[in-house]
């Protein structure tokens, strides 16, 4: 039972919790105690130190911003107005709050606001659905499209949209890069022939990809009745991120152990069974390393692309918050930052898990 738990922990990559489990069970208390300190307490401590540094930094910046605001008021409106401004700021009134880096406490309250906001919008949606249910039924009978909720999306909706976009992009990247990588890996002529394409396109910035894709999509989907910004952003994400998989797959396929190829040669396997029974299984570890890099790159460029493509999602959320400049906008941006980081970390762990499931060398 207990070994099952530690196995499960190892599988999902949380080996740092293992000593704690052993300590609770009373195994080698001295050694495991030290391990718990090293692997668990020190990291937790570092989080608190991080929060402390952030808090101090935020306070410092806030004070500079406060002084400047008071000074400005003094130079323009005189001493009395400056005194009023100082009182106003210290009273915590939103109308005169200095705009600076939010403290951890501000970020926390920003997160709470976002959750509240999500609850409100969800309730609103539900109410709307109930209200329009009867009308939509009628419209369906008449062959008209139903009335849809057009209110602003909540933070959670934005996260879901972003995840959809990143998965669409990731799938596109995998669908292009894996077969292309296999073909390139098998043929040295093609590999050296197309090397320049890979070398030149690989380092191209996501922004340029976005522009390039929108040039093409604008023409192709000129009359199509669909969400163009979504199509543009997921294709851009796919094109930006597919290179790691392409390069890794072709490398994996071209560097399959010669012994395995000899086995295939002696058995006189055909091209297809050679690829599917020998070459592909042998290069799965490298292909998955590529896919892992692809997914993390996809998530990273997604934010920038959404921001530019005006496609809904976390990127545009961050940009809108930055533009609207309300009192808690900065805090919400920092919340978004942590959510983006957390989801990126989670996606990487999921890929690692899948890689362990399908690779033959996971037990080695």
């Amino acid at each position, binding site marked *: 039972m207990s070994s099952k738990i530690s196995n499960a922990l190892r599988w999902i990559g949380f080996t740092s919790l293992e000593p704690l489990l052993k300590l609770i069970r009373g195994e080698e208390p001295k050694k495991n105690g030290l391990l718990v300190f090293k692997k668990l307490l020190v990291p937790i401590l570092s989080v608190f130190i991080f929060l402390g540094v952030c808090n101090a930094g935020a306070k410092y910046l806030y004070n500079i911003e406060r002084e400047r605001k008071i000074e400005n008021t003094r130079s323009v409106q005189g001493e009395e107005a400056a005194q009023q401004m100082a009182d106003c700021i210290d009273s915590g009134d939103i109308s005169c709050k200095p705009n600076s880096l939010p403290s951890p406490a501000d970020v926390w309250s920003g997160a709470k606001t976002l959750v509240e906001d999500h609850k409100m919008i969800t309730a609103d949606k539900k109410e709307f659905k109930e209200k329009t249910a009867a009308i939509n039924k009628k419209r369906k009978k008449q062959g008209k499209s139903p009335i849809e909720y057009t209110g602003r999306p909540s933070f959670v909706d934005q996260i879901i949209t972003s995840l959809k976009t990143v998965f669409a992009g990731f799938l596109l990247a995998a669908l292009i890069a894996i077969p292309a990588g296999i073909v390139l890996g098998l043929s040295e002529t093609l590999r050296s022939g197309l090397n320049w394409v890979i070398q030149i396109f690989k380092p191209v910035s996501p922004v340029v990809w976005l522009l390039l894709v929108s040039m093409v999509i604008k023409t192709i989907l000129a009359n199509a009745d669909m969400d163009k910004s979504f199509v543009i952003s997921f294709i851009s994400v796919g094109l930006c991120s597919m290179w790691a998989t392409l390069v890794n797959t072709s490398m994996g396929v071209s560097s399959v152990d010669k012994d*395995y190829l000899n086995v295939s040669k002696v058995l006189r396997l055909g091209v297809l069974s050679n690829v599917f029974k020998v070459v592909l299984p042998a290069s799965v570890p490298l292909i998955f390393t590529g896919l892992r890099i692809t997914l993390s790159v996809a998530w990273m460029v997604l934010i920038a692309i959404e921001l530019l493509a005006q496609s809904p999602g976390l990127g545009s959320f961050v940009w809108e918050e930055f533009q609207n400049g309300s009192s808690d906008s900065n805090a919400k941006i920092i919340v978004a930052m942590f959510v983006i980081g957390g989801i990126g970390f989670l996606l990487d762990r999921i890929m690692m898990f899948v890689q362990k499931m399908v690779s033959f060398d996971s037990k080695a």
Partner: protein
Amino acid sequence: MSAFLELRNVSKSYGTGADRVEVLKNINLTIEEGEFIAIVGFTGSGKTTLISLIAGLIEPDEGEILIKGKPITGPGPDRGVVYQNYSLLPWLSVYGNIELAVKKVFPNLTSTQREEHITRYIKMVNLLPALHKLPSELSGGMRQRVSVARALAMDPEVLLLDEPLSALDALTRGSLQIEIERIWRESKKTVMLITNDVDEGILLADRVIPLTPGPKATLGTTFKINFTRPRDKAEINADPNFKKERNQINYCLMELGKHRTVEQTEQYELPDIQPKDISKKGQAFLSF
């Protein structure tokens, strides 16, 4: 009756121009059906090249290789190869590795026939308990048995063993040698064993043929081994004939080996220099 496997004036070299290395030169060899022959030689004398030639993985520059009078063209399942490093596919189980070969060689078997066929050969190498294990879960000796079973399951005309036991420890090697002899007697295949162990050759083979050290390696005089079968290691070790044979083969190989070392007798005048202490304590990091 024509020979079963015949090599006629086979030569192989790698590289071109000044870098050209003639690995094998004028190899002539005739093997009868059902014979067990061993080729012994130094490392780097071209033993693996010889096996690869017969397996069809590489082509000879000159000469030809005939099986039952027909020249070979490329690799094929009629010659089962067992490599020194096992060459098992690590993502397939013991059963899966053999199944891959059997499916390709006997596509017309029904699934029950195929299962019977595979288990027969796994039984032959005593690996039934490890049927569904992955190669990484097996010891070196067990992996090599799987490799032997895979080669035999293809029902080849000839079994080529390329230093199959070199990577194993001495004790495992001893027990596998006995097992290979038994399997050979049971399956009645023609076997060509390549080894660097003279004792192993004498213990297993009908004929032991030394390969002269490369470059331009060629086959030396054949030694006929006349011990009765089944052979027993302890019995043979005690036999005075064994010592005689071994000494003869060793002597022959050493004589041939001398020729290699004699070639490098050029004297170099060494400069008269003494090592100097250039370390300066406390400044070591600057010197990098």
